[in-house]
């Protein structure tokens, strides 16, 4: 039996390869449009991740780098559900996040921003979605930071998300923004998304129902991966 086909990707939902206000795309955007083909077995499969690759602190960025002591910054929970376009929860998705520290500095050999590194903060986490598609991280709210694009461009506070779903063609890498951040509207990367409703989907609302009193605030980010096409009249090689 063939695996269920994927719904074709709605590319209007995504930022175009060439987004002139985001200057790095100028030399990195293919000129040819991508060749659209139905996914084969090579794209309908993908790496399978089990609980054995997840350590107990992997989703706790407050503790997973330094072990003891807390990083500087606003303590927050980031949580949500991973669904597909058919509105079904997607379990066992590897969710990986990375982010700057509270001062807007990344712990990366090539980041030279003048804000200091935080000895208590690494800046990455990973987890697997549960049977209901749910995931959660504990971290600090990252700071905004300047970047070389325009003369005075600042990234809004954001957390990078990488999702590895069941099929390699469902792979998604994106960024989550925080409700109410005035830098979102000024960001060439965020605003490369053509549809305002698309950008809205990346802005996590404050979620007081998941906040822990006298401990941390919470933000909710639900994520949708590509779905499957219904196949009531699929052409069958063996004949119908």
């Amino acid at each position, binding site marked *: 039996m063939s695996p269920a086909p994927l719904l074709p990707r709605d590319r209007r939902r995504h*930022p175009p390869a060439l987004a002139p206000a985001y200057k790095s795309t100028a*030399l*990195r955007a293919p000129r040819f449009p991508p060749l659209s083909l139905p996914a*084969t077995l090579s794209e309908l499969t993908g790496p399978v991740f089990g609980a054995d690759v997840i350590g107990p602190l992997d989703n706790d960025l407050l503790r997973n780098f330094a072990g003891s002591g807390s990083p500087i910054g606003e303590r927050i929970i980031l949580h949500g559900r991973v669904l597909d376009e*058919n509105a079904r929860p997607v379990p066992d998705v590897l969710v990986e996040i990375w982010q700057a520290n509270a001062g807007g500095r990344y712990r990366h050999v090539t980041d030279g921003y003048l804000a200091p590194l935080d000895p208590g903060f690494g800046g990455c986490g990973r987890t697997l979605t549960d049977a209901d598609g749910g995931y959660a991280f504990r971290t600090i709210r990252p700071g905004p930071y300047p970047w070389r694009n325009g003369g005075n461009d600042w990234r809004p506070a954001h957390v990078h998300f990488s999702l590895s779903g069941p099929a390699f063609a469902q792979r998604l890498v994106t960024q989550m923004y925080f409700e109410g951040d005035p830098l979102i509207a000024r960001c060439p990367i965020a605003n490369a998304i053509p549809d305002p409703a698309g950008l809205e989907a990346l802005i996590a609302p404050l979620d007081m129902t998941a906040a822990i009193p006298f401990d941390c605030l919470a933000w909710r980010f639900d994520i949708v991966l590509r779905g499957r096409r219904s196949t009531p009249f699929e052409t069958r090689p063996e004949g119908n």
Partner: protein
Amino acid sequence: MTPPRTLAETPSQTAGPYVHIGLAPEAAGFSVFETALGQPIAGPEVPGERIRVEGAVFDAAGAPMRDVLIEVWQADAEGIYPHPADPRHAAAASGFRGWGRVVPDFDTGGWAFDTIRPGPVPDPVRSPDGRPMAPHISFLILARGINLGLQTRMYFADADNTADPVLAAIDPPARRETLIAPRTERDGTPVYRFDIRLQGERETVFFDF
């Protein structure tokens, strides 16, 4: 029965220049996780021809991209994927992962990975006659300046690629060559060179699978 589409996919955003923090923290200069993901693609016990694949990703100015992160996905030597959607997955080689993350040298942009040569993969969707796809490795390219990860494939110059249904769909046919990696040998190991050009002359074919 599959329910209808009622939600829209979450939009992509660039992985940015610091993608390695999240997906390959050791390359970023620190470690957090007990288990490093992404290597090896094929453990030492996996049967098959041992090969090395190397290359660089070039931008439109011809500069090798030093901040890229590549994911690869491939079948084992029998053309089987270790994933339940492959009808033969139970027979996949023991210790075979098939998936890897590849980080370039941050100074030169050159990258390389070791694996086994994949076998031909059945294509039940488009080849009802059972004709397989030629051996190939799937690539996903993530980097600053790439808003939606780029999907492509590497094929092997010393394989028979003439009947491959994916290569056959590429028009003009001259562009098929951008996906075919030439073979050399170094210290007795086959080395395939796969240079990826994002834009301009000999621009690599990218897919929207």
